[in-house]
């Protein structure tokens, strides 16, 4: 009884959130999974077991493989771009710039703009209209006598989804910069000095002392960017609309559920997206728990 008095109130305090999360997160994940395995494929709700039928349909669906390709192209450009730009900005700030606080805020600001608003602006900047109708960046290129750089942007045959990743890089590289900046600051000055004492060049100090310390930061950034990328929806809709040429799984899910009312197939996409994110997150959680235990 005395034991209950010790942990009881604590448990009661967190129990509302336990109950709410159990129902509204895990309950709904379970329900989604159930729908994806059912035969609910029209406006009339049904809940008979249909096994993996919806998943098999997706597998045979050419549009779906197109979506996955788009997502891959987007993700690779987005993650590499944001990491590189973020790291470069952090490196420059770390080397000591006057007015660091000012630049830090400037670089962070784009993150405060929602994807949907940024998308509207970038849709104009990346306007693919040719010749005298062109606007945005293509005009800038022509004015700079670099007309060869003018391109079709997100409508490009091969690199369309990489262009689509540019607004996302713009939005999140400031955040990645902040992460890296914290990482740089976490490297004890003594370590660098010790390396310099040993005669290491500045490059070698970074190569062998500072960068290895940034590995956990890179991993965290990778996870954060990865899960944003897999779920990307609003940016794509704001720039490309509901068209196959820029379609990604989250947009297809929306079309299947609200336009086609194919609830099982839409739910199957939702489950696969969750699976994709878990593949990223679960190893990371395991890694974090392990390293925390080691530290303890």
């Amino acid at each position: 009884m005395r034991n209950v008095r010790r942990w009881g109130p604590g448990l009661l305090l967190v129990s509302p959130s336990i109950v709410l999360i159990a129902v509204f997160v895990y309950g709904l994940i379970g329900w989604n999974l159930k729908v994806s395995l059912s035969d609910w494929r029209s406006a009339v709700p049904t809940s008979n077991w249909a096994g993996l039928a919806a998943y098999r349909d997706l597998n045979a669906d050419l549009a779906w493989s197109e979506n996955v390709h788009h997502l891959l192209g987007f993700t690779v450009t987005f993650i590499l771009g944001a990491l590189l730009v973020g790291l470069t900005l952090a490196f420059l700030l770390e080397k000591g710039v006057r007015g660091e606080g000012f630049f830090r805020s400037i670089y962070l600001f784009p993150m405060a703009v929602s994807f949907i608003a940024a998308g509207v602006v970038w849709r104009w900047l990346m306007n693919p209209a040719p010749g005298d109708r062109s606007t945005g960046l293509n005009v800038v290129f022509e004015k700079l006598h670099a007309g060869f750089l003018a391109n079709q942007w997100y409508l490009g045959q091969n690199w369309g989804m990489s262009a689509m990743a540019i607004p996302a890089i713009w939005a999140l590289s400031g955040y990645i910069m902040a992460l890296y900046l914290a990482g740089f600051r976490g490297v004890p000055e003594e370590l660098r000095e010790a390396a310099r004492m040993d005669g290491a060049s500045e490059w070698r100090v970074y190569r062998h002392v500072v960068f290895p310390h940034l590995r956990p930061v890179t991993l965290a950034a990778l996870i954060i960017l990865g899960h944003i990328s897999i779920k990307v929806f609003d940016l794509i809709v704001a720039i490309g609309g509901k068209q196959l040429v820029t379609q990604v799984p989250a947009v297809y899910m929306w079309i299947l559920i609200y336009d086609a009312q194919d609830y099982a197939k839409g739910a199957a996409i939702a489950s696969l997206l969750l699976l994709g994110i878990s593949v990223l997150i679960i190893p990371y959680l395991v890694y974090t728990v392990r390293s925390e235990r080691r530290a303890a």
Partner: protein
Amino acid sequence: MVTLSGGRRARVSRPTAAKVVLLATFSLLVLPAAGNARTATIGGTQASCQLQVFSWWTGGGEAAGLAKLITIWNRTNKSCQFKNETVAGGAGTNAKAVLAQRLAANKPPDSFQGHAGSELRDYIKAKQVEPIDFIYKKYGFTKIMPKGLISQITYQGHLYSVPVNIHRANILWYNPAVLRKAKISKAPVTWTEFIAALNKAKAAGVIPLALGEQWTQQHLMETVFISTIGPTRWAALWTGKGDWSNKGVTLALNRFKTLLTYTNSDAASLTWQDAGKLVADGKAAFNIMGDWQDGYFSGTKAGGNLALKPKTQYGWTAVPGSNGVYDWLSDSFTLPKKAPHRAAAVKWLGFLGSKKAQDTFNPVKGSIPARQDANPKLYGPYLKWALTQWRTDRLAGSLTHGVVAPNAWATDIGTALGLFLQNKDVAKFQSALETAHDKHT
């Protein structure tokens, strides 16, 4: 919780703290439910009748037209005033999601908007709307609306909605000045003339055929189909015995493919207004779009339109090869099952089909009445022309705008079209269309 306030709070001991937490937990769970109960009773005890009408008419001529209808309704129905339940969002995308939730929760409005034809089938199959043949009989709509229209919106022997307006999808819009510049003597009527005109426009250095994003490309494809195979075979494609593998379909798809070579490279980045504006600005010669484009071209600048002069600054004709065929679509209203004020809803539907309501709404909205006895004096130059066509033309239901195919089928066609736009493979596209037909019939 009130007892815990004031002086007694000082004496809260550990067990009571636990009780507080427990209470807080329960109140979290119970309060939202209590909130629901309250609104429910308010809804239930409503003494006066309110006609709840659900639509996505929130802007432009649609909203203005609806406002006029509401004024008439409220003047003649003092006991049951109009309650305007609109949800904003292009072509009803948001509205349909909200409506689906209301219907699922058994809280239907008294009447809701939907495209006439197959798009309503989802609601019919889910038993969410009532057949309304008795309304047609009572008000004589069957006699005054075209037979073709009645038969094309009849599903399994029953009628489910009252069409308020008619739009036409197969219109070729052109810029007369550009045509003169390109030495195109008259608007093309046959397919051969059309291709010749497109070539002349290309030689004159303008975009021959302005095109917009994917749905407008589907719209274009639909008009090419109807022009190529005619309304009878078009209608047959959607019956379940439709033959999508035949030569007519192949020809239509090849024509569509040819047309795409005359279009602007940035089509996917343009809305239908952007594409229409290319014609208005003299940067393109032709554009195929529905007749809502007339409202955009001729409407006031204050309303976000271009204020052009019909016939001099822009011209129109049927899509080449489809003169005498009206590729139609329509906004219509339904009678949901368990409508809270059913008698008023029935009266509303009767009112919507009346000459007065249709001649009030349509000149403002920029469409024509479904009835054939409209007063032409109320309408502008394009609509006057459309009215005469509506009396004589054969009818073909629109695919892109919900008449011939239910949503699921139309979505599959849209997906197949998206793939075709990338690989331009007619054979693959045609077999995908066949598969879609077999899946949905």
